[in-house]
């Protein structure tokens, strides 16, 4: 048998980049083979826009009069906040021994989860574009300039990147694919408990307080603000009055907490 040894010198920085790119390529190659996942990516935004935009929208009076113009930015926020794909993927790798295999290799510890996060974020970008196309088709418009629109997209990508790390950490903690998939039932109410679908002003005070401080509300409000869509009443809640800052603050907080947690959990032995 031919004997092979690694050719390149393993300097830490170079290693991290090579390992991270390999981990990202792994995930992207998997997605390419998985037509179901791709059709979910294409189909989910369409279904969400149809269900919420027309079924709920037919009965909801929205700020600014056009419910779908209010809803679409909210749906952007739900996509950005969706931790399921990364959580399930990591739990799956963990239960199948793939995480152990990577742990037993001389790979930079943070590289694999980081690569995974980057690949998932790239995939999320496709979802944002598709959601945007759906939105345009049902009457959602960007009213501010391209700079604000780019800023909105940037916020979404950043927030999603942070949420992917939450998913990576929870996926490792849960460790089993089935359990991770089942937890979607717990995640859904967290999304509902926000200003994504309806303004929070009509909720009971205690519920409104939770919804106003839900990070997803800040993201939705920030995106609405930047795209120039109806924002709804802020109820004097700080995150809704300063949505962009609140969104950045939430993102930073999540990254500060979950990147070290996820990395440490990945390296744990």
């Amino acid at each position, binding site marked *: *048998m031919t004997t*092979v040894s690694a*050719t*390149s010198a393993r300097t830490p920085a170079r290693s991290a980049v090579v390992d991270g790119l*390999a981990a990202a390529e792994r995930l992207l190659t998997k997605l390419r083979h998985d037509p179901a996942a791709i059709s979910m990516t294409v189909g989910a935004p369409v279904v969400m826009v149809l269900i919420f935009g027309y079924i709920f929208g037919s009965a909801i009076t929205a700020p600014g009069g056009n419910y779908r113009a209010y809803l679409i930015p909210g749906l952007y926020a739900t996509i950005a906040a969706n931790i399921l794909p990364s959580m399930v993927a990591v739990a799956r790798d963990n239960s199948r*021994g793939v995480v152990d295999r990577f742990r037993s*290799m*001389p790979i930079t510890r943070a590289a694999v989860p980081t690569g995974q996060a980057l690949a998932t974020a790239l995939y999320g970008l496709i979802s944002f574009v598709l959601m945007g196309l759906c939105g345009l088709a049902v009457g959602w418009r960007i009213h501010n300039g391209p700079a604000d629109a780019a800023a909105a997209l940037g916020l979404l990508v950043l927030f999603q990147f942070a949420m992917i790390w939450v998913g990576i950490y929870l996926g490792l903690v849960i460790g089993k694919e089935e359990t991770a998939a089942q937890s979607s039932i717990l995640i859904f109410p967290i999304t509902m408990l926000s200003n994504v679908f309806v303004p929070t002003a009509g909720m009971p005070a205690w519920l409104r307080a939770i919804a106003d401080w839900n990070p997803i509300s800040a993201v939705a409000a920030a995106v609405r603000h930047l795209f120039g869509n109806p924002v709804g009443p802020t109820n004097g809640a700080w995150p809704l009055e300063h949505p962009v800052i609140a969104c950045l603050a939430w993102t930073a907080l999540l990254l500060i907490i979950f990147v070290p947690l996820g990395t440490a959990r990945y390296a744990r032995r």
Partner: protein
Amino acid sequence: MAAIEAAGLTKAFGSVQALDGLDLEVPDGSVCGLLGPNGAGKTTAVRILATLARPDVGTASVGGHDVVRYPQRVRSVIGLAGQHAAVDEDLTGRENLFILGLMHHLGRRGARARAAGLLDQFGLADAADRLVKTWSGGMRRRLDVIGSLIVTPLVLFLDEPTTGLDPRSRADIWATIGTLAAEGTTVLLTTQYLEEADRLCDQIVIVDSGRVTTHGSPGALKDALGSRVDVTVADGADLTAASAVVVRFAQRPPSLEPSENRLTAAIAAGAVTLPELVRELDAAGVAAQDVSIRRPTLDEVFLDHTGERAIEREVVA
């Protein structure tokens, strides 16, 4: 130099004592089999040696590197195929190996060439471009083992490499391990199949309740257990009479298998000769159909050492 050295490895998970002072020394270039019942601590031992877990107490080194202090050095000289086939079902076989090649810093061209070479060498080239989820269990397991060979390891850990495989696939894995061993890779494998250990290993370590109960070469282990007598009688009614004869030479009461009209007994080496035994049986009026004195099988060695905790001895190979 010993490729693997461990002294006093201890590890508890809650109230379960997985390892309880395990010692191990595997010479460079040899194949060592960790043999033991479920829960004996085999997998925990492999996980500690492969840097996936830390021991509570004790030290271990692999390839001369301390597993606790220098895990990254250990990782650069080992390969691991864990208990599950750690392959990506949603990738093709070729892509699985290609990604691992990238992670081993072979570069894109190098990783591609290495994947192709390994797939050819281990007879998986035909299936290489199909998604692994369409592969048989045996093929997946082989891919998993091959995945630990991307960069030829000094020490290869295989945790139950053939569990659940059909005989054909098992033979393929055996051939793979044989090839590696012949080229000087040190292999530590865990198994519940005694035939496998007998066939592949230079040294067998029997583990029970987190410690080594016995170790030695397969031959030495069998020698240490003396011989076995099998007597098959034509008429089942003679079995008791046959037992009464055999017990005179045996270390323990013979075990009877009435459904087979057969009894088996452990005897000290040289306790009785075959003609002597046949004469004794004949004198007792037993119509023996088949009488044999043989070395114990590894199964019998294994049962002796894991079933009866009292036996704790060391066999020098």
